[in-house]
C-alpha cells in the first residue's frame, strides 16, 4: 500500500475514533442526560481520541518514509557485495542504480533479456525487500493507530480531563507550525551562507566587495576566448543604489504629500475613493510596471533627451528608477497615513487651539509625532526598491557599468542574480555560486534596514500620549 493510501486510511480511522470517543464518553456518563457529569464535553473526548489515533500514526509514517530508502539501500549493498567479487567496490553506486532500474523494468514487465543472472537475482531481492518493507509499514501504522485509539478509549472516565489534554495538543500543533516557518528561514539563510562561503573560496572576498569589474564568465577550456571571469560587485551595488535613490526621490515626497492630504485634508468621500485606488497601485504586478517602464517611460525620456540634445540610452537607470518610484508610492503613503492618523486628536487640537494654522500644525506637531511610523514606511519602501527585479530587468538592462549617471544603462544585484541562474548551471562553478554571494549581500542589507527600522520605531514609540 502506498503512503498516500495509508494516510487516507489513518484519516478514516481517526474519523471513526472521533465518533467512538463520543459514544464511549456518553456510555461512561450513563446516557445522554448524564453527560453533564463528565469533566469535559463528549465532542472533546471524541476530538482527543481522533488526535491520539492520527498523530502518532502519521508521525510514524513520516519517520518510516525518511529512513526506509537508506535502510533498503544498505541491505541491497550487502547482498551485492556478497554475490560479487571484491573488485566492484568502487562502482557500487552504479551497480545499485542498475539493480533498481532492472527492478523497475521487471515490475513494469519490460524487456529484461540483456540482464545477467546475478543482476536478475539482485533485482528480485530488491523487489522482495521493497514488498516486505511496504507490508511492515502498513501493518505497523495500523497497529499504532488502533492501539492508540483503544488505549485512549479505555482511559475515558468521569474524571478524565480531555479538555486540558486537548488544549496541550492544540498548543503543540501551533508550535509546530511556527517551527516550520522558523526552520525554513534558517534553512534558506544557511544554504545561501554555505554556497557563498564556497564561492569566496574560489573568488577572494576582497575582489567581490571592492572590485570594479563585473563579467561573470568562466572559461570552460583553457583556450576559450573572452572567458576570464571578473567578480567585482561594486558596479552592481552602485547600480542598485542609483536606481533605488531615484525611486526614493520620487516616492518619498509624493508619498508623504499623499499621506498628509489623505489624513489631514481630504473629506471622507475623497478618502473612500482615493485609498482603494492607491491600494490597487500597490497590487499591480511588477512585471506590468516593467513593460510600462520599457515601452512607455524609457522612450519618452529618450525623446525628451533628443529634444534638448542629450543622448540618453534606451535602457536608462532613470526610466527604471522613476517607474519603481511610482510602484513604491503606496508603501510610503499608506503606512505614513496610518502613522499620522494615529497621532492623538488632542495634540492637533492643542496646536490649533493656540492659533496655529492647519499647515503649521501638520509641520510642527503631527509630522514630528508621526516620524517613527514614517521612517518605518520609508525603510520598508527602500527594502522593496532594493529587492525589486522585474522593472530593472526590463528597463535598465544588464550592462554592469560603473556610473552614477542616471541616463546611462546600469544593472542591479537582483538582475544579475537572475541572469546568473538563467539556463544551465553547474553548482561548482563560480558563476552560479556568485548568485548566492549576491543574495547574501542583499539579505544582509535588507536585514540591516529592517533592524534599523525596528530600532527607530522602538526608540520614538510612546513619545506622545
Amino acid at each position, binding site marked *: 500500500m502506498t503512503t498516500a493510501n495509508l494516510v487516507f486510511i489513518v484519516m478514516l480511522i481517526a474519523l471513526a475514533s472521533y465518533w467512538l470517543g463520543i459514544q464511549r464518553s456518553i456510555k461512561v456518563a450513563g446516557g445522554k442526560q448524564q453527560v453533564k457529569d463528565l469533566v469535559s464535553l463528549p465532542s472533546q473526548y471524541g476530538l482527543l481520541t481522533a488526535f491520539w489515533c492520527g498523530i502518532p500514526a502519521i508521525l510514524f509514517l513520516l519517520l518510516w518514509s525518511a529512513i526506509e530508502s537508506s535502510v533498503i539501500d544498505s541491505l541491497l549493498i550487502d547482498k551485492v557485495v556478497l554475490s560479487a567479487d571484491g573488485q566492484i567496490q568502487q562502482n557500487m553506486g552504479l551497480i545499485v542504480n542498475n539493480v533498481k532500474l532492472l527492478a523497475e523494468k521487471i515490475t513494469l514487465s519490460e524487456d529484461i533479456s540483456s540482464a545477467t543472472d546475478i543482476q536478475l537475482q539482485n533485482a528480485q531481492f530488491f523487489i522482495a525487500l521493497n514488498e516486505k518493507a511496504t507490508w511492515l509499514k502498513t501493518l505497523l501504522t495500523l497497529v499504532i493507530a488502533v492501539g492508540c485509539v483503544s488505549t485512549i478509549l479505555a482511559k475515558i472516565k468521569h474524571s478524565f480531563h480531555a479538555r486540558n489534554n486537548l488544549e496541550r495538543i492544540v498548543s503543540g500543533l501551533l508550535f509546530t507550525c511556527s517551527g516550520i516557518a522558523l526552520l525554513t528561514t534558517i534553512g534558506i539563510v544557511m544554504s545561501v551562507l554555505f554556497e557563498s562561503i564556497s564561492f569566496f573560496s574560489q573568488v577572494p572576498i576582497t575582489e567581490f566587495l571592492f572590485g570594479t569589474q563585473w563579467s561573470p564568465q568562466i572559461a570552460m577550456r583553457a583556450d576559450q576566448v573572452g572567458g576570464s571571469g571578473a567578480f567585482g560587485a561594486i558596479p552592481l551595488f552602485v547600480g542598485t543604489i542609483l536606481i533605488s535613490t531615484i525611486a526614493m526621490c520620487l516616492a518619498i515626497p509624493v508619498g508623504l504629500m499623499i499621506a498628509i492630504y489623505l489624513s489631514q485634508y481630504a473629506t471622507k468621500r475623497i478618502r473612500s475613493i482615493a485609498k482603494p485606488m492607491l491600494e490597487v497601485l500597490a497590487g499591480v504586478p511588477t512585471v506590468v510596471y516593467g513593460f510600462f517602464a520599457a515601452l512607455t517611460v524609457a522612450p519618452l525620456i529618450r525623446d525628451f533627451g533628443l529634444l534638448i540634445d542629450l543622448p540618453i540610452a534606451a535602457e536608462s537607470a532613470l526610466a527604471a528608477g522613476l517607474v519603481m518610484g511610482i510602484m513604491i508610492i503606496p508603501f510610503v503613503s499608506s503606512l505614513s497615513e496610518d502613522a499620522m492618523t494615529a497621532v492623538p486628536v*488632542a*495634540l492637533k*487640537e492643542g496646536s*490649533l*487651539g493656540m*492659533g*496655529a494654522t492647519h499647515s503649521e500644525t501638520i509641520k510642527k506637531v503631527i509630522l514630528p*509625532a508621526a516620524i517613527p511610523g514614517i521612517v518605518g514606511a520609508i525603510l520598508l519602501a527602500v527594502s522593496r526598491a532594493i529587492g525589486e527585479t522585474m522593472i530593472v530587468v526590463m528597463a535598465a538592462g544588464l550592462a554592469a557599468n560603473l556610473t552614477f549617471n542616471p541616463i546611462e544603462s546600469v544593472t542591479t544585484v537582483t538582475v544579475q542574480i537572475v541572469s546568473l541562474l538563467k539556463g544551465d548551471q553547474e553548482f561548482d562553478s563560480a558563476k552560479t555560486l556568485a548568485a548566492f554571494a549576491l543574495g547574501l549581500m542583499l539579505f544582509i542589507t535588507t536585514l540591516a534596514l529592517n533592524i534599523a527600522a525596528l530600532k527607530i520605531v522602538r526608540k520614538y514609540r510612546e*513619545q506622545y500620549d
Partner: protein
Amino acid sequence: MVDIISAKSLGSNDIKIDGAVGEPFCDDAKMSMRNVDVFYGDNQAIHDVSFDLEKNQVTALIGPSGCGKSTFLRCLNRMNDLIPICNVKGSLQLDGEEIYGKQMDPVLLRARVGMVFQKPNPFPKSIYENVAYGPKIHGLATDKSELDEIVETSLRKAGLFNEVKDRLDQPGTGLSGGQQQRLCIARTIAVSPEVILMDEPASALDPIATAVIEELIHELKEKYTIAIVTHSMQQAARVSQKTAYFHLGKLVEMGDTKQIFTNPRHELTENYISGRFG
C-alpha cells in the same frame, strides 16, 4: 429616602425651562453670546443660549453629562470648526466683534481665546519648545533672549518654573499629570490671550495637583477672562465668581456663584447642586 435619578427622567418634560433665570448679563462683558443654537447634523445640542462672560472673572459652566457645556465652550474659539457637521447659529461676540463673522480669522481668534483641554496634551517636544511653540508661530519674539524671557514668564505664571528650570530641554511628556496640565496652561499664556477656556482642566488629576491648578486659576483671573467647564460642583464653588447651569442644551440659571450655591432660583439647579442627580 432620596433617589438618585438620571437627568433624563427628571428632564425638562417634568420641569419647564422657560428662558434663563438669574442674571446672565453684565455691564463689563468680555464676550457676549445671544440666542446661540448649535446643531450636530440634524441634532440640536444647544438651544437658544444667551449670556455674558464678565471681564477678569472666572465663569463656571456646570451641568450634568451631555448638557452641552463643552460644546458651548468650544464654540467660543471656533474649535467646533474641526467638526464638519457642526453648525452654529446666533451671535457670539468678543469685544463687540462677531466671532463667526466673515472678517474673523479663526486662527487669530484662537490666539486671543486660548484653550486648555481635559486631558493634558503637551506636544512631544521639550518643555522649552512646548512653551515657545505659540510665540514662534505668531512671531512674538524677535530674538532668542526675548523668547527665553517669554518662556520663563509663562512658566512662572503657571507656577511651574521652579520645578522645571533645570530640565527645560527634557520632553514635556515626561512630567507628571499635574505638571503637564500646568505646562499646557503656560503654553496657552505664552501667546498672551485675552480669554482662557478650560474644559474640565483638573478632571484627570489627583486632588493635590487639582488644588494647585485651582490656585493658579485664581491668580490668572487678574489678567485674563476665564471660562471653565467642570463636573465638580465644589470646584465651581471654589474657583468661580459666576456660575451658569446648563441642562439638556439649555441655560437654566446664571448668577453669582455664591447665590447659585446657597440660594438657587430654579428647581433644576437646586436639584443638581443638592446632588439629586448629575
